[in-house]
């Protein structure tokens, strides 16, 4: 019984991590109609920046802040230099170009940080475990759940209660119309891209103490993130949250209950089933 509870908690934590990634990507894809494969690379950048800033400043919180800010800047740079000219081009061009960014930034990271994996340690005050109904659960994993939940709440408030959120929702459902209404779409795009990058960086640096910080670490996350975005419905943060939790829990439970091999494909089966009945995802933003 406690094993099931523990696995559900594991699934929840994994799902929340995926949500941080997927919420940024779903906005970029949904609002700008821009397929950004380099989203995983921003996740890697967040982790590398955090390791570096932690070494430089000696403070975990400062490293978190600086890494998120630097990655947001990197996101803005990518948006300005590379994404802008591609908004009007078709998806294939965008995929090719952002794939190029992955290759370029991966190699750049190798030049700067080397090919040996790096380590980021969780701060001492998040080290250790707590007793949850008889299971010793790592505090750090609970902290990930808490931070992600706070981000989800903040995104919900911004998107449903503010003027900016209204513009974002409007952008996701009808881009042409909001340009027609005189909204500075350039500014909105830049902002969304930067927020997406910041969220990816947050996901990357939160994962860093659990994972090896190394070149290419974002590439595998990207695939799962795309699955979440597609299941949730492109452009919908609410859909991304539900899909991320669904994928996190089903993947975790599937891996330990189904025979080897089946557990690893269960989320792709889930995606196929959902797309069969709801081709635009669970919460299509422009339905």
């Amino acid at each position, binding site marked *: 019984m406690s094993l099931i509870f523990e696995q559900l908690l594991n699934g929840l934590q994994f799902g929340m991590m995926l949500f941080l990634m997927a919420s940024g990507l779903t906005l970029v894809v949904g609002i700008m109609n821009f397929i950004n494969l380099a989203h995983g690379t921003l996740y890697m950048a967040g982790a590398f920046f955090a390791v570096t800033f932690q070494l430089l400043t000696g403070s975990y919180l400062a490293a978190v802040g600086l890494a998120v800010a630097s990655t947001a800047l990197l996101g803005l740079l990518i948006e300005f230099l590379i994404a802008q000219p591609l908004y009007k081009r078709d998806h294939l061009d965008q995929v090719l170009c952002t794939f190029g960014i992955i290759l370029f930034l991966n190699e750049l990271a190798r030049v700067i940080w080397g090919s*040996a994996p790096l380590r980021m340690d969780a701060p001492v005050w998040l080290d250790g475990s707590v007793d949850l109904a008889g299971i010793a659960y790592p505090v750090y*994993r609970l902290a990930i759940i808490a931070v992600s939940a706070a981000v989800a709440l903040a995104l919900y408030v911004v998107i449903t209660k503010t003027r900016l959120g209204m513009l974002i929702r409007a952008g996701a459902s009808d881009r042409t119309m909001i340009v027609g209404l005189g909204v500075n779409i350039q500014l909105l795009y830049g902002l969304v891209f930067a927020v997406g990058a910041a969220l990816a960086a947050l996901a990357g640096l939160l994962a860093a103490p*659990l*994972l*090896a910080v190394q070149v290419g670490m974002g590439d595998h996350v990207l695939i799962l993130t795309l699955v979440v975005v597609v299941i949730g419905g492109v452009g919908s943060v609410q859909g991304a949250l539900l899909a991320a939790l669904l994928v996190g829990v089903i993947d975790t439970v599937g891996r330990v209950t189904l025979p080897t091999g089946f557990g690893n494909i269960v989320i792709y089966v889930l995606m196929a089933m959902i797309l069969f009945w709801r081709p635009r995802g669970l919460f299509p933003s422009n339905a």
Partner: protein
Amino acid sequence: MKLKSIIAATAATVGLTVGAMAQAQEVRIGLLTTLTGPLAALGQHARDGFALAVEEAGGKLGGVTTKVMVEDDQLRPDVAVQLATKLAEREKIDILTGVIFSNVAMAVVKPTAENRVFFISPNAGPSALAGKQCSPWFYSTAWQNDQPHEAMGAHLQAEGVKKVYLVAPNYNAGKDALNGFKRSFKGTVLGESYPSMNQLDFAAEISQIRAAKPDAVYVFLSGGMGINFTRQYAQARLTGEIPMYSAFTVDAITLPAVGEAAVGTFQSNLWNEDLDNAANRRFVAAFKKKYDYLPSNYAAQSYDTARMIDAALRATGGKINDKKAFAAAMRNVKFDSVRGPFAFNSNNFPIGNFYLLETIKRADGKVEQVTRKTILTGAKDAYFGECRMEGL
């Protein structure tokens, strides 16, 4: 008649002279290894270890001018085949080495043998090449892939461990690894977990292990997977509770990224930095001095490969054009290996020792691996009986 034989004799002499000159000129070596992608550090170690040995020989392995051409296989068999073919046909290499990964090794076995190029693998040792598909053109200077797992199985068996839980990635080498482990471990396997390749989070597997309550857990997860698992295992506070044993998971390359999470875990390997032999002490000191980082077993194996080529070339008087003579010199090669005793088995795979390493934290806070004991002495792989070695 007389004239004819004079011409023939002259031609033979000229031919011999030209041949001898070519032999005296140089030995050409292609170093095909993985230098990009997440596992590039392994290739970097192999390249640097080899270069160190060539430098120590004054740029002349076996007294012959040595030309090393480095290429990046990108861990892609298709790319590796192209590069191996190019090196063999255009660069006229005598020896190909550097290959770390077995899928790459399997891909370049054919193009090297067809071009009469010796393929001396410093790491990859797939079972096929040790057994049915063994070849007089292929040598492994490290191990057959299953051996570190067999060694750890033997160790846990000898320690009287009764119940284990096994973890390996869900691909052929993962299954082979656990089969290798089970070849020498006869106790109960409570569970086997095969996470998918490049899985990031092992929370689910770790919860299962905790619930299964084994005496020990044995893990084969290379590269980033191994780092992630070891750290998450320690974060779950299991390292002290259920001892973790592994191979290819915690090594000199991954240890800096694993950090203190690895303290108290055990590994099997054919080499460690602290192995107490003269060749190794010299190698470790020279490597640190030249490259300013710690060598791994991949660097050691590649260093050994170059020194083995050096010894074989000395035995043939620096000649490699006589392929039969060089092959014979390789099979009977005598050199001071950094791993301790070394000899080739009938399948051109090594007969060597395997060691138990423990990761510890020194008083000054540095985390490092120390050799605890020799698990297997003069170990042979499980496949050499299937090998019918042909002549060249």
